[in-house]
């Protein structure tokens, strides 16, 4: 059997899940962002999809390709949306600023920033003072303590739209006691595996749901940065957390909160202040922490 996967950064996790559940499968996968970059890739994937028995596609990929006037004709198509779950790491944000590499400013661990850290930097807290802001009262005022329930609802409905039932899976991930997301858009392999299983089942595609991809393959997204689930936010859901921030495998660093703040502050100091101003989340966060009555100990 030949399977093509066009998705976002989760494409490799989908691919290893398919390899596990459908024996003797030849799976090719690509990130849709990479696909549309070159005519050569488009030609190659057009041929691949035409010959594939099954094409798994992200809904946004269809839109993206159609906007580019590219028409693929899969023999059988299975739509699997990307996983986005901000409920465990609601503090994650991107800082988009065009002059930056890829338009994204980096933190100590890469593209993911802590909104509190950025806001604290802009408000003049030094890195030691900023550490104090990582507490549940701040989280509560920023809406982080209710984010889990909201994300869960959104997550379930976004998959139900495509006939994929993941409600019971979420309960299982939660009851494992461990974070099931590396960041808001990087799920653990077991999450993708459950989603792929549910999608194959919903579409009557023959497969063996029993093997565990984690036993046979390394989780592809482990190579990427890991943003922690803050313990105060994980605990109410029975999920253990930490304040450990992991870089990519390439950079190979694990930062404590203090270390993360210090390194991120160094990076931020290389950019002009206006680089951070565009993000609405940062403005909201600044409003909350600016009310923090620590003005006597702040800079200035």
């Amino acid at each position: 059997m030949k399977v093509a996967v066009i998705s976002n950064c989760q494409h490799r996790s989908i691919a290893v899940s398919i390899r596990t559940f459908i024996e003797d499968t030849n799976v090719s996968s690509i990130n849709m962002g990479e696909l549309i970059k070159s005519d050569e890739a488009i030609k190659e994937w057009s041929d691949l999809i035409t010959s594939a028995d099954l094409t798994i596609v992200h809904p946004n990929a269809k839109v993206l390709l159609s906007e580019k006037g590219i028409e693929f004709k899969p023999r059988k198509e299975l739509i699997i949306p990307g996983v986005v779950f901000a409920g465990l790491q609601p503090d994650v944000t991107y800082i988009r600023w065009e002059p930056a590499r890829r338009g994204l400013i980096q933190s100590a661990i890469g593209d993911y920033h802590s909104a509190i850290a950025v806001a604290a930097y802009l408000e003049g807290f030094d890195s030691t003072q900023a550490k104090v802001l990582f507490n549940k009262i701040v989280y509560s005022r920023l809406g982080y303590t209710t984010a889990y329930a909201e994300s869960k609802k959104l997550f379930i409905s976004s998959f139900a739209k495509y006939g994929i039932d993941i409600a019971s899976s979420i309960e299982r991930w939660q009851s494992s006691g461990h974070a099931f997301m590396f960041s808001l858009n990087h799920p653990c392999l077991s999450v993708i595996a459950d989603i792929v299983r549910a999608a194959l089942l919903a579409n009557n595609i023959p497969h063996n749901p029993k093997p565990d991809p984690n036993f046979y393959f390394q989780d592809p997204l482990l190579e990427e940065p890991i943003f922690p689930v803050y313990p105060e936010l994980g605990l109410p859901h029975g999920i253990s957390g930490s304040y450990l921030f992991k870089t990519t495998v390439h950079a190979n660093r694990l930062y404590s909160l203090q270390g993360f703040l210090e390194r991120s502050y160094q990076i931020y100091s290389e950019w002009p202040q206006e680089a951070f101003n565009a993000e609405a989340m940062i403005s909201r966060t600044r409003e909350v922490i600016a009310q923090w009555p620590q003005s006597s100990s702040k800079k200035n």
Partner: protein
Amino acid sequence: MLPKLSNPYRHLPEAANWRRSVAKSAGVFDPVVDVKFTIKPTDIIATAGSCFAQHISKHLVSKGYRFLIEESPVDSESPMYSARYGNIYTSLQLLQLIKRAYGIFSPVDNFLKDKDGHYLDPFRPQLFPGGFNSLSELLEERSRHYEAVRRVFETSDVFVFTLGLTERWVSEIDGAAFPLCPGSVATESEKSEGLFTNATVAEMTEELREFLGLIKEINPKLKMILTVSPVPLLVSASNSHVLLANTYSKSALRVVASTIENEFPNVMYFPSFEIIAGPQARSAYYAEDLRSVTSEGVAHVMQVFGQHLIEDTPISESIKSSAPGEESSPGDGKFVHGEFDGIICDEEVLDVDGAR
């Protein structure tokens, strides 16, 4: 036609009648008529407050309830609470404890110094015998303490707090509340000398309201049991006779407790004060010094407490709540078998003449 009148006192319950329920009460005196909530065997209980609150801690530990210990007492001479905050005598101290632990309030005073030049924590001056050798040592310990305090407030199901005093010492610079006048325990202060105030009902009520507002943000399910310490004032700085000062203190604290109980559905007053200090006890629960509460008195309070507030049989001993992924340190939990006999009152240091 004239309206018909009825006597509203005619059908009142027994408990409403002084003669029958106080003057001639039979058996174990029990003034609890109704409770807002009970403590489930699975509930995690934390305690704080004046020295009388230590009796409650001790009892919960000895009876095997799920008493939360986030920080073991420094030594066997230390007061036993869920974290190392020492005795919290006033509502202002309680409010500022939560504010300090969450960085909302950062007092200008970080340390006191004793005669040997050792550093003392102005907010726990007697908790660490001999103090700290350096300021950084003190600040590191305090940072760990604040983490523990945050866990106490975030993870407990029931928080028992005993209101102790209206008289308090605050920083004249930023209003930081000290458990004791800095000059009574130290020879040097970083900035403040300490200013005496005697809190009003309005001030204390507002402080508890603010405390409960913060609690709602971090642990909306928390139930709070308020008690008023029956232990009389040891000494008063109010220029009043100590007996009059004591009457003001207990009356004001009692009003605050009822006001807060009436305002908050998750707060309940428990009458340990009335059980010990009420005329029905005929002062029998006070020791020779007319101040210390006897073990019989404590047992009576805890019997009524258990009867009305505790559901079923406790299922476990005191617990050390660990942050997820973190192991309990072996030292914690060793104090769960009621080894604490002494009740530690910081106030004793104020009794400079040794008068008891």
